[in-house]
């Protein structure tokens, strides 16, 4: 197990009248190479949960294990932060250096890598997010487009050489080109580089198309955990929580209810189209 949470609970401002329990007894684990989608309505505790993955928050009860070792006592926080890269919402707000190179190099510098190693890491991190090293390395991050800035910020985390990348709504606020760029690179990182990815997103179409496993968090508890097909079949429960269901899944479920024989686990336009055409042909026969 890469990440393992055992009965984790967390409360903000404990022992005050303002105390607020954000995570309630969550047990959850992620295997190497998985692509997990973490979804939940606003305030369900997603952002709080991911801060436990790299030791930014310490659980009030329960424990967090990385590679089977307990954060703090058996594995140092710095090592955990190297292994588990966390990309927060609007990560472009963390850029601060005057060149893209220096900003991406911030992480490896903190890890005390040698100069050659730093250059190598920056080069490969920028490549992973699809930015040309020589074109971008000397530019100021503040002159880039929104999508490029975000990719530089993600490269800054990738340069830590993590084995798992956690992203909190990496596509929010981007135009559709910027979104697609980021998502294709994430998919490639998972498939080609074997990087474990945990993706928080509100866009269920995005989630359904990309991930192997969906975890639904609601009011600090894990409500569902399974393949996209299993989870999105609980359409009514999800809608009740204030979550969407992928448009295709919604369509297929409705067609199914009306007696059309269509499979429910399709999330690609062409497949959905073909299956509907097939079902219509069968019916007309």
């Amino acid at each position, binding site marked *: 197990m890469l990440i393992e949470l055992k009965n984790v609970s967390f409360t903000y401002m404990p022992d005050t009248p303002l105390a607020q329990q954000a995570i309630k007894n969550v047990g959850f684990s992620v295997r190497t190479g998985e692509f997990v989608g973490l979804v939940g309505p606003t305030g369900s505790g997603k952002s709080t949960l991911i801060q436990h993955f790299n030791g930014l928050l310490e659980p009030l009860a329960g424990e967090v294990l990385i590679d089977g070792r307990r954060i703090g006592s058996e594995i140092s926080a710095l090592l955990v932060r190297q292994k588990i890269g966390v990309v927060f919402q609007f990560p472009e707000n963390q850029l*601060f250096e005057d060149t893209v190179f220096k900003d991406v190099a911030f992480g490896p510098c903190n890890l005390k890598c040698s100069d050659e190693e730093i250059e190598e890491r920056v080069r490969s991190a920028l490549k992973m997010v699809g930015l040309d090293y020589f074109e971008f390395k000397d530019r100021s991050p503040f002159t880039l487009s929104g999508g490029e800035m975000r990719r530089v910020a993600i490269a800054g985390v990738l340069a830590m050489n993590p084995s798992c990348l956690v992203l909190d709504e990496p596509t929010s606020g981007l135009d559709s080109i910027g979104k697609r760029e980021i998502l294709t690179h994430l998919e490639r990182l998972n498939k080609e580089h074997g990087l474990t990815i945990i993706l928080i997103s509100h866009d269920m179409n995005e989630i359904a198309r990309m991930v192997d496993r969906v975890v639904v968090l609601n009011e600090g508890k894990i409500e569902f955990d399974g393949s996209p097909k299993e989870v999105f079949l609980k359409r009514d429960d999800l809608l009740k929580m204030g979550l969407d269901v992928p448009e295709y899944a919604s369509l297929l479920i409705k067609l199914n209810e009306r007696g059309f024989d269509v499979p429910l686990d399709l999330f690609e336009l062409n497949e959905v189209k073909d299956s509907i055409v097939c079902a219509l042909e069968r019916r007309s026969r």
Partner: protein
Amino acid sequence: MRAFSKLTIGQYYPVKSLLHEADPRLKIVLLFFILTTLFVVNNFLGFIFISFFLLMTILAAKIPFSWILRGLRPIIFIVLFTLIIHFFFTAGKPIATFGPLVVTEEGFKNGTLLSVRFILLIIVTSLLTFTTSPIELTDGIESLLTPLKKIKVPAHELAMMMTIALRFIPSLLLETDRIMKAQVSRGADFESGNLFKRARNLISLLIPLFIGIFKRADELALAMESRCYRGGEGRTRLRVLTMRHGDWLIGMVTLLFLIMAIFAGRL
């Protein structure tokens, strides 16, 4: 963040009470009078009068005593320091000795009076902020400063600046927390290391923070202009401050108490 949550001084305590509903201008003016009285009064009898009055006020404001005490926590050290310095280092008639140190009657009296004065000072001021929301406070200050516009004091602009500054404090704290966590996730260490390394890491926090502040300021200015904000000239307000009968009464009672305290305090 945890350190800030323990500080009550300067915080608003949201309940409904006679004092919460009073006109903020009245509260500011009365605070000014009470502070003056605290400096005029020079004996224990006067302070007893004022303390009794403050006790009544706290009860009327429905503020728990634990909040008042927590507000005093940051000044404990200063009070103790004042006490010790006065006890042992004032010339006069000795009343007790601790080894080489001599406590004098004058020192005892001055030290205690000064400490009591200081504690009461903090309590009164925090009573104002406990019972008055920041918005009301700036409204009150603006209204009180309005006559000074004649001598070119930018009353409205000052109040608007204060309102905006107050509004942004929590946002900036949140933002700082967020950026700090992002940089810590990239291996930054804000807590240990030598001075040079720490300063370098601080840059990674300060630059994004400043960029964020300027961006916010820009956006806010744009949002205000697109809603036709052009300064205070001719602007009407949503909450019009009015002195009600109860407010006049509060004012009278307070002044009466203060006059008594001053008489008792100058005996």
